[in-house]
């Protein structure tokens, strides 16, 4: 195969002519099955109540017990509750809902997300977070230049576009949810805000696992921000990123030095961070990238982007460890461009799963 283009012939196609008969048969047998099913279910109706976590498909009977409150992904017909989505059944107290396996991102309070500004409106920005609705970022929920303690003034309302404008990418936390399920965001912490020095890739949101930390420094001077909504930002590791990781080393040294040492250590740490905050607060809305992004960092970012796409292609959930393993596995391919080929993506996916199995910690974590 040439390195210019790879063309994969799809054999399976949609050859209706050849499968017509099979399908017809399938169809007719399908018609029988529900009959049996309904019988079966009406016989063993109680079995379904214990079915939390079970996978259902649209139209499948969940329960005939009317005591359940019907949540998302279900519908009610003639005293029975059916699923309206393909997913797993979840029961919270009396609320019965089906969580779809795939689909648009549904925000939850506390999610760390990455989004893109689509609209600058009256005291608010609209943010595309890959959900059903755009999220809202209120002017009052962002840090304004000039220090955290600054109050928003009227002139800020008029110059909102100088902070964030259409197209800007930012990371934020879901502060609360509105009645209709759309999210309200905030960036009132220095780990949130406008993103620079890199690029955005998108994966299905179901592949990003909610965890404590979504920002990871990766080998090769690259930092990844895994938005729970499936938007992933890859950038050059900044001073801030390094500083953020140091406190995690801090407590470890605290323990070794004892409680007194901890007191003396912590203030210095916090001082350095606040200074960083102050320095950066003026630049948090700058559109200028770090001028010192070297070609090798750019290549690393491209490589990570391809690794993440490969993992997503193989439907492997994204974690810090897996991205690093995938990256290491991809080093075997010196040409980053090869990573977009299907076989290569599959082999990287296999590698990641195998290595994780070998290390054995994937399961324990």
């Amino acid at each position: 195969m040439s390195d210019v283009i790879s063309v994969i012939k799809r054999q399976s196609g949609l050859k209706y002519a050849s499968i017509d008969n099979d399908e017809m048969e399938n169809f007719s047998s399908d018609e029988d099955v529900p009959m049996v099913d309904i019988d079966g279910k009406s016989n063993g109706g109680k079995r379904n109540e214990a079915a939390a976590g079970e996978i259902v498909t649209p139209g499948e009977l969940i329960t005939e017990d009317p005591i359940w409150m019907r949540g998302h992904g279900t519908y009610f017909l003639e005293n029975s509750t059916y699923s309206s989505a393909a997913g797993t059944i979840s029961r919270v107290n009396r609320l019965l809902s089906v969580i779809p396996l795939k689909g648009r991102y549904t925000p939850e309070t506390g999610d760390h997300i990455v989004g893109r500004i689509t609209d600058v409106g009256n005291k608010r920005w609209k943010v595309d977070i890959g959900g059903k609705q755009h999220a809202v970022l209120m002017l009052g929920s962002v840090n304004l230049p000039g220090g955290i303690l600054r109050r928003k003034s009227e002139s800020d309302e008029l110059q909102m576009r100088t902070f964030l404008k259409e197209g800007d990418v930012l990371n934020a936390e879901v502060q609360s949810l509105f009645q209709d399920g759309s999210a309200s965001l905030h960036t009132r912490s220095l780990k949130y805000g406008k993103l620079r020095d890199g690029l955005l890739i998108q994966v299905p949101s179901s592949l990003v696992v909610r965890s404590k930390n979504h920002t990871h420094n990766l080998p090769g001077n690259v930092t990844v921000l895994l938005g729970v909504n499936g938007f992933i930002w890859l950038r050059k590791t900044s001073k801030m990123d390094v500083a953020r990781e140091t406190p995690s080393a801090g407590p470890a040294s605290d323990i070794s030095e004892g409680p007194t040492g901890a007191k003396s250590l912590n203030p210095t740490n916090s001082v350095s961070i606040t200074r960083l905050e102050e320095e950066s607060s003026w630049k948090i809305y700058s559109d200028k990238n770090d001028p010192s992004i070297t070609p090798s960092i750019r290549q690393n970012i491209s490589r990570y982007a391809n690794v993440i796409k490969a993992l997503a292609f193989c439907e492997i959930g994204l974690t810090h460890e897996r991205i690093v393993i995938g990256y290491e596995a991809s080093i075997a391919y010196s040409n980053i461009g090869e990573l977009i080929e299907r076989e290569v993506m599959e082999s990287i996916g296999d590698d990641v799963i195998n290595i994780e199995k070998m290390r054995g910690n994937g399961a324990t974590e």
Partner: protein
Amino acid sequence: MTLSIAEKSYLYDSLTASPSIRPDGRKPHQFRPIEVSTDFLPSSNGSSRIISGDGSECIVSVKAKVIDHTLSDEELIQVDLDIAGERTDSPQVETLMSLLNKVLKSGPGFEHSRLQLTERYSFKIFIDILVISSNCNPASLISFAMFSALNTTTLPKLISSFDDLKVEELPMFDDYDLVNLKLKSPLVFLLAIVGNNLIVDPDANESEVCDNAIIVTWLDGKIRSPIRTLTLNNSYSKGFDPTLLQKGLKLIEENAAAVLTALESS
């Protein structure tokens, strides 16, 4: 699609570096992988479906009809384009339509003799193109799909006599036998210019920041008309060095054959 200023400048700086660093790490002459399935529509004489790595998808169906070419001098090939989510009279669709019509007439032109059945009757070919999704300019993808579809198109075999000017009879066809209509449709390549670099097959992000782009038609080992520049975005477009045009045409000339072989073998 709108990108942030920071993203654009990151991409632009990466692409203008020498050698260029594309966001997906491709070489300048490397295309995105595509998946092709042909002959999947049972009611068409030929069909193909192409899916690109970024999810762009295009379906082409070829149908044929017998017409009396002595009566009307209508075109023997008719292209119809539908892009999902676009009005049929939108500038994008009309521009592409006009381009595709010119592409099909490119080079030595469509060999009308291939479509001629008898002295009196010809096949008229209807090419219906449906772009299901596309993140960037679909011209190249469409031409690949058109090529695969026409490459696999089969038409009924004529059994009546060729010379029917004197005898009034309609052409008769064999009930089962099909003839392969080996029509070679030209390939269209999209070439983006960023700074002093050239890249083939720009993806959506690359399209957003490129200075300019060229559409090149290629058939039978040669670059043909139509060729034209187009800008894939309107915020970054600017002029470019004339030598890049020559370099670009050469780049296509070098790599087009590989694309053709890949498409033919599939």
